[in-house]
């Protein structure tokens, strides 16, 4: 394996986004994921290898460590965030390499709700897993969300709400998508402390995701099918 790609993988495992990042335990120094990705491009290494042997291979090891309880959620997030930054650098080169992102995912905290920690974590994890993520922000009115879907045609729409009052807006959004003839064009995933699998079924969402990891699993399952 090319030395730059090997370093890239190790830095993904350590979740070191840049050379200034101390990582988990200060064992790695020098360039981080962002710098190494750029170096790989500068050295004309195949984009496919950069992604498969550097970023994805690193994330697989992170996943294994997470499952073995050696890594915790912050470790997973740091690695995912580093990978998502790398993907931003690689994005202009994907088409030439006959590669594409896994899909477009628009995520939003619904009207009346300003909570965004969970939404941001989901966004980081999905981006790190190879999805193109568009964060529409917090407290976003339903008509703006509908307009966005109409104009940008995302593959997935993630709705987030923390409160039992604002979770009701999710149902209104799905009804609005239906009435605008957009419901079949986008899969709607919901998440947040107030909602549940039963609520997702009740309002006609495609899936409920308990956390960001489940969101990645759900979206990957659509890829597989």
């Amino acid at each position, binding site marked *: 394996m090319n030395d730059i790609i090997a370093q890239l993988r190790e830095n993904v495992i350590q979740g070191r986004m840049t050379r200034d990042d101390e990582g988990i335990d200060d064992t790695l120094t020098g360039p981080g994921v962002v710098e190494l990705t750029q170096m790989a491009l500068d050295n004309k290494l195949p984009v496919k290898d950069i992604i498969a042997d550097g970023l994805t291979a690193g994330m697989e090891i992170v996943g294994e460590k997470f499952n073995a309880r050696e890594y915790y959620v*912050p470790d997973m997030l740091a690695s995912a965030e580093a990978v998502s930054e790398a993907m931003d650098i690689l994005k202009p080169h994907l088409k030439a390499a006959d590669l594409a992102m896994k899909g477009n995912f628009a995520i939003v905290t619904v009207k009346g709700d300003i909570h965004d920690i969970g939404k*941001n*974590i989901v966004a980081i994890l999905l981006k790190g897993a190879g999805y193109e993520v568009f964060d529409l922000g917090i407290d976003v009115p339903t008509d703006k969300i509908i307009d966005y879907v109409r104009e940008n045609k995302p593959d997935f729409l993630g709705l987030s709400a923390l409160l039992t009052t604002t979770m009701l807006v999710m149902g209104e959004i799905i009804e609005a998508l239906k009435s605008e003839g957009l419901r079949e064009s986008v899969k709607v995933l919901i998440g947040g402390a107030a909602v549940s699998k039963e609520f997702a079924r009740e309002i006609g969402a495609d899936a409920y995701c308990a956390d960001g990891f489940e969101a990645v699993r759900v979206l990957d399952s659509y890829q597989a099918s």
Partner: protein
Amino acid sequence: MPRAGILVQNPYERLTREQVKTIHRASLEILRDPGLICFNDRAADIFAAAGADVSSVEKSDPPHWIVKIPERLVDEAIGSAPKTVTLGARNPDNALVMNGDESRVYFITGSETNIWLDADFQSYTKKSDPSVEIHVPEFIPRRGTVADLCMSAHISEHLDTLDGFIRNVNIQDKDITEENKDVNKLFASLNNTTKHVQAGLTSLSQLDNVMKMAEIIAGGEEALRQNPIISLICCLVKSPLQFVDDTTEAFMEICTRGIPVVVSSAPQAGSTAPIKEAGILAQINAEVLAGITLGQIVNRGTPILYGTVPAKTRIDTLSDSYGAVETSQYTIDCTQLARFYGIPNYSTSGVSDAKVPGQQSSIERLFSNITVTMSGPQFLHCAYGLLDCNSVFSPLQAVLDDAHFTMIKYFLRSPRIDDGEINEILTQIRTVLPTPHKLFISYIRKVMRSGLLSPLYPFEGDREHDTVFHMAHERMKELLAKPVGHIDREKTSRIFNEIPGLLPRLNIYGEGR
């Protein structure tokens, strides 16, 4: 390097400086008048020779004396009692160094209990969800044995927060007698933990054998003096204000050997001491000062701990109420008194009135464990696993207590606020604020691996039923499966050859069985 314990910054104090002095003056007044009743003739003679006002009580049976102790003798004793006491350990890294002026708290197990509480888990199916199995403990009490004491010491060796071991199981096997009890309880303890071991002496006739055992293990007389792997505790003053004959005799003998000793007093407010706070404090302080004074007259400089175990009387049974909030108040006050004298304090917390582990037990013990630890006693006899006051030991509860003390130790760590920290967090804030996610999560990683973050509660379940007891029980089994560094074969052989009364079944090398 000795164990770190936890250094309490700005210890919690209930009394003003003037109130401490008021109690001190009241205690001196008690020591002068009425003085103490002394049932030990040698102690009465020693006090008289030192200048105390000693008078025989006419036609008393048993014979006893009134000992009135002048302030001068108390002052001299406070002056000669070491301000720093070291309690050694088989593993020198487990030594405890206690300075009377430093509020470094060491956590030690609790007192000698008669009952060992087994936990037998029954499995039930949840009615609303038959796929869920619930494990509920049935607690089964039985008389403690020497095997139980070995098991307790073994568990204690592996409890991270536990700094030392007081033999906490009264060994009641059929072949245990008054004459062989001391050597067996100490060997069972010392052979199963490398931490400091403390015990009371059952029979003065066994002191030589106990000392010899300790010397063999420590590596000789001088080695034992440098590294006192055992210490003894004497409750020589029975409340109110009575020098007990046999314990006082044992105490004086122990003092001549130079082994660290706790002078302990355990009055009950409302029965053996006045119910009012000022009353129990003045009395317990007088009782402990009287003991310390005797010890220092017998052997100047003998290492002594100021031991206080006050309790409120239960109004329903007139027994000790260790779970009462007043008990914690008295205890905290006593720590302040010990600090006034600069003598290391042996204190108590975590004893529960509850008979089994559960909510009452957790509430009572955690309340006193937090508050008393905050007061900064050096030697906190903190009742790992003790229930029903001092009569029951539950190893399951001891494992739960270890989790409590982990929380308390994290809580009491000193704040880290300095220019270096501020510079670091300013950099973090300036880095994070412009990012889309505005999360500091990546900075957790290094910190959480540095030991600076308190761990999650180790027995947390993830469903709607309580899994704490079952998980703690599994943890206990894991601890028992971990090896212990026993006393080596050669020393064990010497001990069994040279010290009479040891039960052959305690020899793990099989010799003499």
